């Protein structure tokens, strides 16, 4: 694998992660439990989809085969998507959405902080912008998690159940593939395993305040980063891509 191929794959993965999660969060638009949260979730989804456009446009340029952001988003099947499994899980109840966002945000923020120092000017530019947005995301998901965990019996139990359910998807975030190892060696992206300490500190701190238990389960699911997805991604893409698949090249 050349460095250019690795860079394509990494930019594509960041695009896929943010696009898939952004789409999942956007599913709350018009359905969130309170109006303020409807607006907040739509805003967070918009930030992520904006970041996805930046990454996918860059991936298309690095690849050099004429694929733009739309071709990469709308004309690939689930096996060609290389996002982490946690991003594609269904939105579930509101506790699931908040717990998923929290586990992701706690990883996303230190990753972006490192990328904001990348010698790759484009990754650096995208990350410098996104780091400000994701600082708000992490604050938002952390505050909700504390409110749920340290709230009523019902909210506590639902948050704990969501945490137990989603925990198995967190290991994959720190598993580097060949492309990520190559880029980390070249100093372009951080070593993913080095982000674990930061993630642990954030997770443990917020869970303690929320009176939630860190799940003991050590078995971790993986495969998303290699195109092996849970059944949920294909269904999500079917909905997300239906217009471009039915009317290829349609614009409005």
């Amino acid at each position, binding site marked *: 694998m050349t460095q250019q191929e690795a860079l394509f794959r990494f930019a594509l993965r960041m695009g896929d992660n943010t696009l898939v999660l952004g789409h999942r969060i956007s599913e709350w638009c018009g359905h969130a439990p309170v109006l303020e949260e409807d*607006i907040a979730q739509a805003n967070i989804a918009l930030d992520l989809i904006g970041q996805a456009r930046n990454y996918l446009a860059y991936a298309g340029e690095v690849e050099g085969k004429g694929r733009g952001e739309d071709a990469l988003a709308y004309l690939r099947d689930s096996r060609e998507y290389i996002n982490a499994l946690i991003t594609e899980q269904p939105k579930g109840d509101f506790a699931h959405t908040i717990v998923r966002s929290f586990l992701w945000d706690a990883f996303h923020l230190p990753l972006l902080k490192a990328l904001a120092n990348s010698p790759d000017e484009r990754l650096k530019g995208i990350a*410098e*912008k996104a780091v400000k947005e994701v600082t708000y995301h992490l*604050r938002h998901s952390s505050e909700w998690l504390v409110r749920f965990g340290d709230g009523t019996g019902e909210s506590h139990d639902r948050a704990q159940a969501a945490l137990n359910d989603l925990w198995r998807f967190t290991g994959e975030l720190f598993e580097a593939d060949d492309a990520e190892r190559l880029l980390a060696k070249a100093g372009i992206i951080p070593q993913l395993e080095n982000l674990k300490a930061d993630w642990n500190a954030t997770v443990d701190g917020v869970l303690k305040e929320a009176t939630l238990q860190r799940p003991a389960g050590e078995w971790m699911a993986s495969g998303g980063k290699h195109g092996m997805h849970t059944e949920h991604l294909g269904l999500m893409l079917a909905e997300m891509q239906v217009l471009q698949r039915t009317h290829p090249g349609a614009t409005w």
Partner: protein
Amino acid sequence: MRTAEDITALLEQVKDPEIPVISIRELGVLRNVSVDEDRVEVTITPTYSGCPAMDFMRLEVERTLREAGVERFTVHQALSPAWTTDWISEEGRKKLLDFGIAPPPSSADIRALKGTAPAIACPLCGSTDTTLVSHFGSTACKALYKCNACKEPFDHFKCH
């Protein structure tokens, strides 16, 4: 022949579609204008990665240049350095306030990013007895507040 100053003055007509009292220069979205013989280069930067107004502002810049008879121009979009609320001009801040949006504090006050910033004054009655309702308001760049004194809700252009 037009100078960069002429083009900048011309682009004063281009407003933020969501806050139509403030121009893209006052907002800090217009980053650079240069003129090389008859060729005009304009650089703009988004406030947020997903700002849906960006495509519109770009089209407005292009339309304004075309209508003024500028034939050769390029509009670039730059992400770096990342836009900050510190780039909103003093005049822009005043216009935001008059429009009913509490302007952002300086990001040099890092407490603003950490959520422990001093209270935001109500743009309607001036009281600092205000409460944050939501970090996320009617657009990506705003938070939602309410004033405990006059009881009115208001938008706050959040620190970025």
